[in-house]
């Protein structure tokens, strides 16, 4: 069973066990962010062409490199604020990215759906299916919050036990930066348009 599966089934127990594993250094810090990027590249390739191609995987990974980047920055901010630190930063990064497992499962389901669609169905997703996907993202976000809360409790524990604050800081920094980057200059007119139209 992979570490991601263990995190999905029993996050607290999995993090406690994984913290005891040996290993440090740049590869430990880089391997899971790179795996996340690879999976995102695969999703882009599937969505655009209905298959895996080297060209689209690389392009998708470059396009979405901001996601692990902002995750790393937000984790670094929380990590710096909370001495003592039971694990090295490299190990913290590795375990934090293992907590992305719900998103990886969602992406796998998304490409499985794409694999049976025609190009037209993939481009113009039926609206009920589109709404279902949006709702499923909310469920995955909630699942991810639950797992990340266990990460902060087990891997970077606070003496006062208020790990939810760390989680909130990480989400505010990491997610708001990523959303601002992705939706960019269109964010405000788009929001205003949805409210006032």
């Amino acid at each position, binding site marked *: *069973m*992979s570490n*991601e*599966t263990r995190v999905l089934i029993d996050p607290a127990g999995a993090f406690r066990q994984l913290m005891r594993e040996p290993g440090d250094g740049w590869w430990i810090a880089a391997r899971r962010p790179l*795996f996340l990027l690879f*999976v995102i590249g*695969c999703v*882009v*390739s*599937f*969505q*655009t*062409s*209905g*298959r*895996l*191609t*080297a*060209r*689209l*995987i690389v*392009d*998708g990974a*470059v*396009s*979405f490199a901001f996601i692990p980047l902002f995750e790393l920055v937000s984790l670094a901010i929380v990590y710096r604020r909370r001495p003592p630190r039971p694990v090295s930063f490299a190990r913290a990064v590795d375990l934090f990215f293992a907590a992305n*497992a719900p998103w*990886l*499962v969602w992406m*796998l389901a998304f*490409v*499985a759906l794409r*694999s*049976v*669609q*025609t*190009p*037209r169905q*993939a*481009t*113009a*997703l*039926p*609206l009920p299916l589109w709404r279902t996907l949006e709702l499923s993202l909310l469920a995955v976000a909630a699942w991810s919050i639950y797992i990340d809360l266990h990460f902060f409790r087990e891997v970077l524990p606070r003496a006062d036990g208020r790990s939810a604050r760390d989680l909130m800081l990480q989400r505010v920094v990491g997610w708001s930066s990523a959303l601002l*980057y*992705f*939706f*960019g*200059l*269109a964010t405000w*007119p*788009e929001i*205003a*348009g949805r409210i*006032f*139209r």
Partner: protein
Amino acid sequence: MSPRLLSLAALTLAIAAGTLADRPRPHPPVTVGGHRVLAADFHTHSSMWSDGGLTPWGLVLEAERQGLDAIAITGHNETLDGQLGHWFSKRIGGPTVLRGEEILNPAYHMIAAGITETVSFQQSAARAIAEIHRQGGIAIAAHPEPGFWAGYDAAAMQTLDAAEICHPMIYQRDAAQRDFERFAARAPVAAIGSSDFHGLGQMGLCRTYVFASDNSEQAILDAVRAHRTVVFGRDGQAYGDAELVKLAAGDRRLRSAEPSNSRGGWLDWFSRIAGIAGLAGLLFA
């Protein structure tokens, strides 16, 4: 062999098969009635601040693969990715890239194609069109759903160059095609087909056949201004200049240039199945 190694092998084979199948569609130059007919997609978004899935240079390569002669890269209220894509395509001798912008105003969405500087979204549609024209570009109403009609007042409709009549929405909502037809009937505008490509699905699914003198940016812009376009909508219905629609109907090459809705051949299926199995193996095993 461990499950992890098996998964890696499956993924490697999936990528090899997919890359082999990733060949550009052949699209020899088409001339009809003395015009060079160019397949164009005037509404594409990159991952640089416009919630797309591909980089600006990735859009150029994808356009080539989809048999498109021209695209406009239309950043949301910005033009930087259009500039990058334009530069890259020139370097590799790729499709004609028009620098563009999708102007997102709460009251309207508008494509500005063939511009050089960002057009402010904080102005009326008529003033935005005037600014686009000052820069030598064309203004296209983007997916003109009824909620945007009020944003295009009489002054804007008088100077609007074109409107999207084929957009992926027509395959999502039965009423969308009729809505776009009703909008286009408000003023004499060129018919446009655009995919509003964000990385989901197929670029050029909806495309515009531009009857131009050549494949230069200027020739494409001139042709749209002169309404020399043909678009195939839902159920294959043709829209555009009546004479050109007749010419297009008598020439099978345009219909056969329309994008295929097939799920692909055995290499595609192998890439999909092995890819999903490989990813699942790496994730769970």
